[in-house]
């Protein structure tokens, strides 16, 4: 039985010590299936200069079974700008291209149906909020904590690293800012290099839509998974690196191609941790 109580996620936003997710205190009182982690966050340096408000420590508790391949959504942090506090009514949304593509299912609370935009948002919000544990039901890979991937010298600065192993690209990996206009929509993709992702919505709203193939559950080999994933290829002209590809395959009908979309709606202040690059946990178990 393990007992630790505090994990510190320190200084997440761009300093040389970013992403120093220190080993903290955690507990595992009921075996591997139930690990409760308490995260004590120090608010990162913000886009604004309101340090007095934004540096207030935020504490919250997460029922962390393990890291599954599904994203984590943590509601109600204070990492948001004034006027975007939780509890306010959602702003009026115009129907966007993705609204008509969401597939409905009563069995999966994360699976949203065709609704008017305002109802749509409300249902997603409630589903995400009430079914938080759904994110982590599948608990094969027990995880003790958010591990620090790498640590910079806290007393150093960027110039320290210019001639060393790490380049400034490390910083672009660790932290970035997305400023999006209304109705901005990215193409289906996965984050490169097997990186996990953390995001904090500072202002406005975001949909993260996870695409999952129904066939993942029946694949017998990693090669089958790769073959299935190749079905996601975009048209050549829509790809970020069109010079590298010859295939011209496009997702035309997601339902016909067996791709399910799971929408996660995040409002200002919400934190999303997407720890795994692919949603293939069940398929991967076959090979363990």
């Amino acid at each position: 039985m393990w007992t630790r109580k505090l994990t510190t996620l320190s200084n997440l936003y761009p300093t040389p010590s970013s992403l120093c997710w220190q080993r903290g205190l955690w507990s595992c009182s009921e075996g591997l299936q139930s690990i409760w982690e308490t995260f004590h966050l120090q608010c990162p340096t913000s886009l604004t200069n309101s340090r007095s408000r934004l540096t207030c420590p935020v504490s919250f508790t997460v029922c962390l079974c393990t890291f599954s391949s599904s994203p984590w959504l943590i509601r109600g942090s204070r990492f948001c700008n004034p006027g975007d506090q939780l509890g306010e009514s959602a702003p009026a949304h115009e129907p966007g291209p993705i609204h008509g593509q969401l597939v409905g299912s009563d069995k999966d609370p994360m699976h949203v149906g065709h609704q008017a935009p305002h109802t749509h948002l409300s249902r997603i919000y409630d589903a995400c909020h009430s079914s938080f544990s759904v994110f982590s039901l599948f608990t094969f890979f027990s995880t003790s904590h958010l591990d620090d991937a790498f640590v910079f010298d806290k007393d150093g600065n960027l110039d320290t690293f210019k001639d060393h192993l790490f380049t400034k690209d490390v910083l672009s990996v660790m932290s970035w800012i997305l400023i999006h206009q209304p109705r901005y929509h990215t193409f289906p993709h996965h984050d490169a290099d097997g990186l996990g992702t953390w995001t904090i919505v500072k202002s406005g709203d975001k949909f993260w839509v996870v695409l999952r193939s129904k066939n993942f559950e029946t694949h017998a080999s990693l090669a089958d998974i790769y073959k299935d994933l190749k079905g996601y290829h975009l048209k050549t002209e829509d790809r970020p690196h069109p010079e590298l590809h010859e295939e011209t395959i496009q997702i035309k009908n997601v339902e016909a191609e067996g791709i399910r979309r799971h929408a996660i709606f995040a409002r200002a202040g919400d934190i999303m941790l997407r720890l795994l690059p692919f949603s293939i946990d069940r398929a991967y178990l076959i090979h363990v």
Partner: protein
Amino acid sequence: MHEVYSPNKSVTIGGHFLTYDTLHLTAVSRGFDAQNKYSITNQSHHSVHPILAQMLVKIATRTERCLYALLIIIRPF
């Protein structure tokens, strides 16, 4: 696989990271990218490889990693 839609003006901060606990899936993802020439990803970072190398080094050089190694051993699977 995912896509992102912003229904209104939004500002989001974020970042990437690696964890020891998910390196097996990192390997799957990197393997797919290598075979398919980064066809369905958005941006590749050249710093990831040295980061992975440093992670490997730190397992041996950081004493607190011993606990992590112990946890791997006692896992019942």
